[in-house]
């Protein structure tokens, strides 16, 4: 960890998910990363050591570091997404650690929605299995740009280059159907630490980087869309004070592109046009604002703008429509997707009613085949649907912008978030 403040202030942030099936060593890998980066403290270690002993585990059970809830400890499984943090002098890392059981697809999608990178673990003895495909497909669906495939337990296959190559070509064949631009392969032993932080001495034949080095150096400069300027208005700031009597500021988080003082803008849906007067910060004005900054704009003209409106640059509007096509992941165990069902759709800071017009097909996430004859969409199912909204929404395709291309559906009877969607058109 860097103690040099200047260096620390220069660090950037990488969010990644880890996915794997039961017993493929995911917890061991995370434990190893945290331990070797000195992010596990003595009292945490002591607590885990003691629990392991009480449970009768032979070695210190690193899974206990991440399994925090009582029922998880009792059942020895991970129920929910757990977030873990560590830092090297180069980067701060946020791990969304998601469980691998089939019934927890929704957690994997949740963890992947904010990730820049996904680590997929494969047991070197077993090669690519159904869960590997499922996890990779979810990473691809959520448009994660980098996958790092860790072929684990190399110690159990005699550090065999042939076995590694076999797994790699298996995976590559499957991955040709995915939409992930960067895939790296690393042979590791999470248990013994080979190629996790330090280069393995047991696998001279591997010429690539160890995992931590890869995580520290992977390029993440293109994670946000810096082309199409989008600013969903979150909150209108009106101080009503003597000093700021006429102040009317539009607060929000830049969802795409760059906004500068003087830029000609349009407000959607009204279509009113104006110019950015100032980009405010508590310490003074900013020259420009870009994704994902939280800022406040004032405009040259006094026009009516409220939460849910979107400020965009003139000549580069998003699509506006009451009909959208999307991939939907169903999250509710209490209710299935209803064709002709009515929901509230939350998209950026906007919220409108919607009708689930048509279920086009389901996706079999193990084979990636379209399933057209099964009309039941339940918890953890993924489907392509068309949706009609009660008012136009202003969006970009999810592929182009993860912020303006994503939405959730809320069940008005239970208030629960029942689905997550990615807009195709």
């Amino acid at each position, binding site marked *: 960890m860097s103690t040099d403040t200047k260096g620390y*202030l220069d660090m950037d942030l990488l969010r990644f998910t880890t996915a794997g099936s039961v017993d493929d060593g995911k917890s061991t890998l995370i434990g190893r990363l945290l331990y070797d980066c000195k992010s596990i403290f003595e009292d945490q270690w002591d607590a885990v050591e003691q629990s392991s002993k009480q449970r009768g585990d032979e070695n210190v059970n690193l899974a206990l570091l991440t399994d925090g809830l009582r029922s998880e400890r009792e059942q020895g499984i991970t129920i*929910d997404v757990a977030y873990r943090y560590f830092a090297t002098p180069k980067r701060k890392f946020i791990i969304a650690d998601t469980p691998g059981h089939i019934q927890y697809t929704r957690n994997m999608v949740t963890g992947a929605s904010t990730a820049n990178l996904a680590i997929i673990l494969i047991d070197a003895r077993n090669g690519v299995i159904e869960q590997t495909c499922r996890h990779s497909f979810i990473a691809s669906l959520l448009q994660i740009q980098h996958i790092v495939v860790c072929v684990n337990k190399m110690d159990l296959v005699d550090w065999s280059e042939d076995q590694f190559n076999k797994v790699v070509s298996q995976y590559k064949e499957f991955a040709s159907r995915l939409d992930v631009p960067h895939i790296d392969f690393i042979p590791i032993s999470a248990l013994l630490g080979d190629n996790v932080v330090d280069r393995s001495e047991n696998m001279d034949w591997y010429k690539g980087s160890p995992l931590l080095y890869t995580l520290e150096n992977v390029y993440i400069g293109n994670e946000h869309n810096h082309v199409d300027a989008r600013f969903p208005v979150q909150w209108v700031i009106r101080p009503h004070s003597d000093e700021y009597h006429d102040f009317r500021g539009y607060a929000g988080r830049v969802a795409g592109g760059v906004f500068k003082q003087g830029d000609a803008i349009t407000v959607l849906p009204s279509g009113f046009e104006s110019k950015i007067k100032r980009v405010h910060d508590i310490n003074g004005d900013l020259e420009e604002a870009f994704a994902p900054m939280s800022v406040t704009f004032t405009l040259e003209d006094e026009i009516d703008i409220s939460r849910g409106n979107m400020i965009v640059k003139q000549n580069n509007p998003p699509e506006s429509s009451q009909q959208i096509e999307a991939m939907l992941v169903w999250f509710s165990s209490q209710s299935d997707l209803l064709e002709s069902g009515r929901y509230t759709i939350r998209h950026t800071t906007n919220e409108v009613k919607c009708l689930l017009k048509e279920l086009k097909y389901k996706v079999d996430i193990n084979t990636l085949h379209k399933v057209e004859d099964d009309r039941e969409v339940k918890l953890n199912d993924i489907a392509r649907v068309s949706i009609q909204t009660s008012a136009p929404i202003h969006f970009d395709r999810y592929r182009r912008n993860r912020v303006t291309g994503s*939405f959730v559906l809320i069940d008005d009877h239970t208030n629960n978030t029942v689905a997550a969607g990615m807009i195709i058109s």
Partner: protein
Amino acid sequence: MSERNNYQLTHLHQLEAESIFIMREVAAQFGKPALLFSGGKDSIVMVRLAQKAFWPAKLPFPLVHVDTGHNFNETIQFRDDLVKDVCGDLVVASVQEEIDAGRAKEESGLNPSRNRLQIPALLNVIEKNSYDACLGGARRDEEKARAKERFFSHRNSFGEWDPKNQRPELWNLFNGKMDFGEHFRVFPLSNWTEMDVWQYIKLEDISLPNIYFSHNREFVRRNSILLGKCEHITLLDNEEWESGNVRCRTVGDMTCTGMVESVANNIDDIIEEVAAARQTERGGRADDKRSETAMEDRKKEGYF
């Protein structure tokens, strides 16, 4: 701002932008939010972020302090000064009043902690004022049960948390819908670590109560925790007051906030100490040591 070229934000500025976004969502999605203020460094950082989120307007929510009656004097003084400084509104919920009214019962025994007694006081002040969202400064790196909590954490009408039935949170879409009588706890600092908080305090030049810095104080060693001398702690037979240079890593009740021996008297020294620390900051909290899932159990009942 020490931004990089090609539109990259440093990690601290990303965390800041995320927290400000969450605070504005709370103002927009809820009718009567409140900010739970403990006087600790995390809630002081929260106030700073809230100022930034709504500037030049005042904070659109009051600061609510659950006063155990066992607070460090320095914390109370600091709180009052800060409230004045940000022109904020302060609401104090008193644990003593809960005890006097018979809704809470003082623990008996050796060092009776009022930590758990904060629960009825907190739930009461929420109900009395109809707060529908309480902003808290808890972080996921603090404790293992917290690592699984959402930014928007739903509470039923009894204030209880159901960890196995949490709402999924994707991208930056937060669902604050609820039925009458329910409320939310919202944690804008979820993704911050202790180190991030200290670095941000340095970056923003935020002032803190002086108990965070090294000072000379009388204390007693109990179960390898250092407790500051106060009227609420009685010495055991084989114990005695010692004196030395100490400071707090977290600030809570005097009866359970352990201090560390330290000579760090400025932010840079503290950052150095945090980086070298071998114990988590809650490692000195007697309230967490009561059982392996002490935090989870308290949270289910409605703790912060």
